[in-house]
């Protein structure tokens, strides 16, 4: 795969709200669930998004999305957010478990099952427990392999996992996983985070360059950690492209305001969620032009040859 093909996306449709991963008010969550109850309605929205210029869908692979893709009958580039961890909040009730392999889909193909079996056979479980990166790789292997290869344009390591490794200061985790995702899936390697400023700072310090990172950016500074100013400073310095989410700051600003703010501060791509738009086609079409704005000089160079 050429370097050109691994360029980061400039405009994605995020669908975290389909799997309740988006942080949004409960009434909006119920509204979205109701709106996309039928696969047909989601398929229509996906189609409109692609026609409006979205380069793919950023989502946790889930039955609702799968059903819509089947209904659509059109190849949709997937930027898969994986592994899909159980909720990591205080209310999670699995006190002794931290196993990304938990719930590994049984529907994986023969090749994948063989690879998993080989990995497990060659890495004693007791040892594997000490290697968080290995556990995550096994989980990605199992889950990403279900997605048709040609549709899988990127593997985005889920925020719950990224931020665990970030807190643990595991630079090898980020380095190895980036290399492994590119090699194994021939797809972009990315990390989702709820601590964008901190992740960018660490990646810079460790000189690790995934294809892009995904995190909240909005004019209100909501969910921008460790702080709005520090995050903006890191975005402006980072050699790693940022794809911004939570552009509307849970409804405190418009999508246009969020998109403009993000681009003005050096973000390369946008990934507004279904829940952040009422008319997906029209709103994406409106910000499509901004997608083609000039690439910040720091992001130009050999990676984007």
């Amino acid at each position, binding site marked *: 795969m050429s370097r050109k093909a691994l360029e980061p996306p400039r405009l994605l449709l995020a669908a975290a709200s389909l799997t309740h991963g988006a942080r949004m008010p409960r009434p909006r969550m119920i509204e979205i669930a109701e709106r996309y109850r039928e696969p047909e309605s989601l398929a229509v929205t996906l189609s409109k998004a692609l026609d409006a210029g979205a380069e793919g869908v950023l989502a946790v692979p889930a039955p609702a999305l799968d059903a819509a893709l089947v209904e659509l009958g059109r190849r949709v580039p997937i930027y898969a957010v994986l592994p899909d961890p159980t909720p990591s*909040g205080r209310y999670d009730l699995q006190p002794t478990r931290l196993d990304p392999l938990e719930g590994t889909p049984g529907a994986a193909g023969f090749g994948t099952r063989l690879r998993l079996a080989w990995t497990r056979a060659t890495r004693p479980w007791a040892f594997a427990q000490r*290697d*968080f990166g290995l556990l995550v790789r096994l989980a990605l292997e199992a889950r990403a392999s279900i997605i048709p290869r040609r549709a899988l344009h990127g593997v985005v390591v889920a925020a719950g996992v990224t931020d665990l490794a970030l807190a643990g200061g595991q630079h090898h985790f980020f380095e190895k996983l980036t290399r492994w995702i590119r090699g194994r899936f021939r797809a972009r390697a990315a990390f989702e985070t709820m601590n964008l400023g901190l992740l960018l700072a660490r990646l810079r310090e460790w000189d690790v360059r995934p294809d892009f990172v995904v995190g909240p950016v909005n004019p209100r500074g909501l969910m921008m950690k460790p702080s709005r100013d520090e995050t903006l400073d890191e975005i402006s310095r980072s050699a790693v492209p940022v794809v911004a989410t939570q552009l509307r700051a849970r409804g405190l600003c418009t999508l246009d305001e969020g998109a403009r703010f993000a681009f003005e501060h050096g973000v390369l791509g946008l990934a507004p969620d279904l829940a952040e738009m009422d008319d997906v086609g029209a709103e994406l079409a409106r910000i499509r032009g901004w997608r083609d704005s000039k690439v910040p000089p720091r992001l130009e160079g050999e990676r984007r040859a």
Partner: protein
Amino acid sequence: MDVAGAVAGSRGLEATRAAGESPRPLRPVRVAIVGLGRAGLAHATLLAAMPDCEVVALVDRRGEARARLHGLGYRARDFARVARMLEAVKPDAAIVCGPQHERAALATEVLAAGVAALVEHPFGVTLEQAEAVARAGEGKTLAGGCALAFEPIFRRAHELLAAGVLGPIRQARSSMYVTRVFDARHPALLEPGPVAGGVLAQVACDLLFLLVWYLGMPAEVRATSQRIYGGLEDEMHAMMKLTSGVEVGFDCSWSVPGYPQPATVIELEGENGKLLISDDGIEAELEQPRGGLAAGHSRLASAELPHPAAFDWGGEAMYLMDAAFLAWATGGPAPPNRGAFAIEVHRVMDALYRAAASGEPQTVAS
């Protein structure tokens, strides 16, 4: 204690911070984490990102749990026993979140060594165990786990009530629902030892904390509970009567569809109007302007409030709780979840379980 009493009782004790500012340790602090399950992992993750905080010890008798934390990059010394850790490391503070049936003993040991302790709720399996922890924490730095009280929106609601926006409360209703347990094999039902209870003890205790914080201690409670999937209650419905005679409704379930994220709602009606407090925001309908709120209908969205945590893992309330505890442990003000208050929540919880078991109203121990 009524609303005014509850507010007066806490005034001057709580961490009062400028809006938008996160609490933080007042000096470098060395912390041990006792119990390396999910909660221990969450605390370790958050503390690793906290300024002036160093995780110096990891304690769990399960080698597997210790290995997992090391696998995540934590390089602190690990121990199978608390006594050995206290002797070797001498931390300034400890987060105690071991299994419920071991928690009281672990907490007591930590406190006896003069180490500040944040003990996850519940303190123990029985009220007697919890009382023992509270006694061990008298005159010391003991806090109970209640992250919800550190959610900016629930914190703001407390400030509004303290400012008297509603005046005397006439009635209250509350609920907490989450979609979690639909199977007798759910891990919540398979703890390695005895536990204090089901949805009330493990989830809705946070709502109970808010009610006691906002409204004061009930004098008497009535309750019914349902067990659907196992030996623990999956739902509870209760009425709590405050000393003022005001009735407070309380409903909780972890076996209800449609709540992938926990949803907490508190509806209060007072002399000056109504407040609806939820995870999403506060809606007020006031007769007279008070506490900075205008007369008539007004709404404050959660997103409008400052969210000052420096690190987010599954939200930021837990970070703020840990930071407030460490601020207290290093000479700062006491947080709302200080041990002397947390034990009162245990007493209400115990009364609710007694009421549900007996079918009769029960008085709350004081």
